[in-house]
């Protein structure tokens, strides 16, 4: 039986088409993936992301303990700041990608992928030197409010001045009278917030956002649009684009790995070695120049030989062309390099392009 978020009944009432996602019963779309995608690019959309996991480190030493587990450096940021980071295995491959929130040196919250939550929690417990993590996933529902009209919408519902809450900053306060963590984060390439609240308050918060956002053209959005939005930005999806077998450097996520931070992190030595020896394969952006859509798992070919595979791909609703990404040998990773993708037995030309695919104005 798939697990349900506190918004499950609301999704059904609103006509969400429900699918199993990582063991959760989630809406893939309400009306149309393309329509929901466009709403997020031009107005504002709501996503239920309550299935994500939250793991907390609290008490003296929380910062030091958490910081050794993640690749980015929480000691360099301020309270009220969040960081995108990796949890790596000893070989430098991804155990997960996460967002770490620094409330204070004594309270760190790490938000992990739903599909990895139990694995991550066990991994953290086994490796945490000092403060032990606590699984707080059942204490939080999470709603992502994304799009150019998201900030205005949330601001109208809260007395907290959101002006100082810049990108990857967060604050706490009531939204529509409901206690929330208000975080200027998201995974769509648009401005917006992720709101964390108590599960029992999630339905009321969702309805308040829908009502207040009516004039903005707000729409509830499903995981389908979330996927096409993040592909256009070349944001990685765990299990597709990043996993335990590909390193952070190969994935182009070296920027979230602070190799010289005090105390280091798990997987650091493997990355240092790989950096010195040179990365052999890279995750690149691809545009299909022939006819067809490249999808996850399709082989990438050079002169008929398999050299890699597509990790994510779709018809980009905003860029209006088929886009994909995948791992290729480094000698084929330069912008302009040409390859083929095998689509149902046909070799279809693709070219390596600069990412993100969507150029923001």
């Amino acid at each position: 039986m798939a697990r349900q978020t506190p918004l499950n009944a609301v999704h059904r009432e609103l006509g969400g088409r429900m699918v199993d996602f990582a063991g959760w019963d989630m809406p893939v779309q309400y009306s149309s993936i393309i329509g929901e995608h466009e709403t997020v690019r031009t107005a504002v959309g709501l996503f239920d992301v309550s299935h994500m996991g939250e793991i907390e480190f609290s008490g003296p030493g929380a910062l030091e303990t958490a910081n050794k587990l993640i690749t980015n450096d929480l000691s360099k940021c301020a309270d009220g700041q969040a960081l995108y980071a990796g949890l790596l295995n000893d070989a430098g491959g991804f155990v997960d990608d996460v967002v770490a929130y620094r409330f204070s040196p004594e309270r760190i919250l790490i938000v992990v992928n739903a599909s990895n939550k139990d694995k991550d929690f066990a991994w953290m417990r086994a490796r945490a030197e000092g403060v032990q993590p606590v699984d707080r996933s059942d204490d939080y529902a999470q709603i992502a409010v994304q799009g150019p009209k998201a900030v205005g919408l949330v601001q109208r519902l809260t007395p907290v001045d959101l002006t100082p809450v810049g990108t990857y900053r967060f604050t706490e306060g009531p939204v529509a009278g409901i206690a929330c963590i208000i975080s200027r984060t998201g995974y769509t390439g648009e401005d917006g917030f992720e709101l964390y609240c108590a599960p029992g308050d999630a339905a009321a918060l969702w309805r308040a956002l829908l009502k207040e956002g009516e004039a903005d053209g707000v729409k509830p959005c499903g995981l389908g649009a979330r996927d096409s939005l993040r592909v256009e930005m070349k944001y990685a999806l765990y299990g597709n684009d990043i996993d335990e077998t590909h390193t952070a450097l190969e994935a182009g996520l070296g920027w979230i790995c602070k190799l010289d931070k005090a105390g280091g992190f798990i997987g650091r030595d493997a990355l240092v070695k790989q950096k010195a020896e040179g990365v052999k394969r890279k995750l690149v952006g691809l545009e299909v120049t022939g006819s067809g859509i490249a999808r996850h798992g399709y082989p990438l070919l050079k002169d008929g030989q398999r050299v890699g595979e597509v990790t994510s791909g779709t018809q980009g609703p905003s860029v209006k062309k088929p886009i994909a990404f995948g791992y290729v040998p480094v000698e084929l990773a330069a912008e302009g390099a040409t390859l083929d993708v095998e689509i149902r037995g046909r070799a279809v030309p693709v070219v390596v392009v600069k990412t993100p695919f969507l150029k923001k104005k």
Partner: protein
Amino acid sequence: MSSIPENLKYTQEHEWIRAEGNRLVVGITDHAQQTLGDVVYVELPKVGATVEMGAPFGTVESVKAVSELFMPVSGKVVKVNEEVVEDPELVNTDPYSDGWLIEIEPTDSKQVGELLDAAKYGELLKAE
């Protein structure tokens, strides 16, 4: 609710056919397009290709998924809807008319009798 026109025949895989003289027009049903969601790519055979009953003859792709198309009956492709290749959304907006896919000359018109009528297809959808 999906629309199921009375004058068509249907497959278990959600294709329809319509007789036009001695030719048959093939498309996918309203239910199929609803299930797929936004259709963004359609791949069809070339005019002159031979197609076999029950065998795949092309694909439709939505943002999320790829679906194979299966021939309701055997025949030779005599016309391909180029407009739907250019504008795949027609499959969503008008699955029974402008969103048609191919036209064939059947090799064995008796095969049509093996397909589902509207009532039987309706029952199939209810059971799904």
